[in-house]
């Protein structure tokens, strides 16, 4: 870096660095605690003082994915030795595995609904953004405002009629219903972000393609789409994260087949009180992919957040 009068002094940089790192450590502490609790035994999880050093245990993860029952002492003694490591973990608690828990299904629902709504949102959003960016759409400014105002509604406010509407047409508690709903919620921000990315692509590229004999559609998917790929990808990440994290609609509109993980995780309970290691394990499996994503794609993500907000 070249020297300039406005460049902060070394002392200033050092001070700023220490302060920011201190804040980062405080902010990361609860997350580290979630992850650590997942690997504790139930006794260690509720120990006082809180245990920083503990013997790692997979009990939380095993409890997360299984349902367990107690059997009579005679039956328990008569059981063959545990065949797998997770059976052994359950046996050590004096119980046997009764079957798988619902966590796997709920997690899979999150994946299906998250990716489904993201793909749909990108298809619709890119097309609309392209039209807004390149054509004279009548009432363009009104439409853009309309798209934005949809974000001001509290989810609960629209949940009542959506609940009624979905019940009427049989979309309640279905994957399709949730995919359509999340697509609609994400669409406004996506169009807004994508329009910005497409605005940045010089219109001359398409003109050249059109003169070479491409149709508008060909120019769109052979010239504009590849140019906008990075923008589309970072917008997609936002949609995915929103759909992944959403709770209010999920808890009101789904109960069984299409329930996602966020409403499910808080309902995990153990024998005689909350099974905190299992809750923590469920949270860890659910949250860590987003954390890894954020760190790997930080350049695009951070730009997207400010870009999306500042443009509005």
């Amino acid at each position, binding site marked *: 870096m070249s020297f300039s009068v406005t460049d902060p002094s070394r002392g200033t940089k050092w001070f700023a660095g220490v302060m920011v790192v201190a804040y980062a450590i405080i902010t990361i502490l609860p997350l580290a605690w979630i992850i650590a609790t997942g690997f504790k035994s139930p006794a260690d999880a509720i120990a006082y003082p809180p245990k920083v050093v503990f013997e790692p245990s997979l009990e939380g993860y095993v409890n997360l994915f299984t349902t367990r029952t107690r059997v009579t002492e005679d039956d328990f003694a008569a059981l063959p030795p545990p065949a797998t490591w997770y059976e052994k973990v359950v046996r050590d608690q004096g119980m046997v595995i009764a079957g798988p828990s619902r966590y796997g299904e709920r997690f899979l629902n999150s994946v299906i609904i998250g990716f489904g709504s993201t793909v749909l949102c990108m298809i619709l959003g890119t097309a609309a953004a392209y039209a807004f960016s390149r054509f004279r759409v009548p009432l363009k400014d009104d439409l853009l405002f309309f798209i934005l105002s949809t974000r001001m509604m509290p989810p609960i406010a629209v949940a009542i009629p959506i609940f009624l509407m979905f019940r009427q047409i049989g979309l309640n508690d279905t994957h399709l219903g949730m995919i359509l709903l999340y697509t609609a919620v994400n669409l406004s921000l996506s169009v807004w972000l994508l329009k910005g990315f497409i605005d940045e692509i010089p219109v001359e590229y398409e003109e050249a393609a059109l003169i070479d004999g491409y149709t508008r559609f060909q120019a769109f998917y052979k010239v504009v789409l590849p140019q906008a790929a990075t923008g589309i990808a970072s917008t997609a990440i936002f949609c995915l994260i929103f759909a992944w994290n959403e709770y209010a609609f999920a808890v009101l509109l789904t109960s069984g087949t299409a329930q996602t993980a966020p409403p499910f995780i808080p309902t995990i309970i153990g024998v005689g009180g909350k099974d905190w290691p299992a*809750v923590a394990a469920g949270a860890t499996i659910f949250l860590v992919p987003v954390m890894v994503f954020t760190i790997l794609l930080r350049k695009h993500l951070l730009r997207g957040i400010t870009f999306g907000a500042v443009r509005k």
Partner: protein
Amino acid sequence: MTHAPMEKIARATPAPVARRIKGLSDRAIAWIFVAPSIFLLLAVNIFPLIWTIRLSFTDYRVNRPNRDVEWVGLRNYERILTDDGIWATMQATAHFLIWTIVLQVIIGFALAYLINKKFKGNDLWTTVIVLPMMLSPAVVGNFWTFLYQPQIGLFNYVIAFFTGADPASFSMIGDVNLAPWAIVIADTWMWTPFVMLICLAGLRSIPDSIYEAAECDRASKWRQFWTITIPMALPFLMLAVLFRGIENFKMFDLVVQLTGGGPGNTTTLTSIDLKREAFERWRTGYSSAYAVILFVTVFGLASIYVKALNKVKER
């Protein structure tokens, strides 16, 4: 942001090139591209809104579909606006809104200011700070109840460690005086990074040349901060306040998992109250009127605020 260049592009495109385009006209393509999005938004956003407004004038109840629905006019609105419980809810929401915004703006701006000093590794640490806002609020809220447990919770332990109080002597989510602060702390932890990122964008938009000029004029750092940094970052700060304001007025997931609105009604924010009316007491007509009032409030406040924001930007 200005529409002038896009209008120019839009107008420039058809004239020389259009004649050479085969197939559909631009106008048709524009509609094909926009229509599905508009249709979906109409079906899932606008149609329900209109339905809500309609229901708000009735005494409909979802759990009694066979009962005759009566048109009650403005009675639902009247009852809501004269209900003391709702004003208590509004107060809880105001407390939450004001304190989260104050704390997030102060901490967020300070962090952005420090990060903008461009120390080594600042982008990695920025990412670490941003992590909480990427996570599921409901799952995070659920886990904060664990951190807030008296005796065994990490939060209580840390507070006790620094103040010497007994960690079992206070319960952040069980005490009527502490619970409103418990949700403020958790929300601040989660959303300060958002304010920080917006502020950072604002600070980075200030050209170095202005500071160089000030340096030549021998303006002190303190003066530069108040006469350059703050005024130029102000529109961004106000924008961050707008977004946090709208989001926290709608706040549901984090708080409902953290305190469930309790103890008593001390942390019953409007969205939580609305959810109880609509999906636990099943007073559909009444809660629709409630939803309309909330929407009008957000919309009205946001519009006034945006006007003020535009004035600041023009300055």
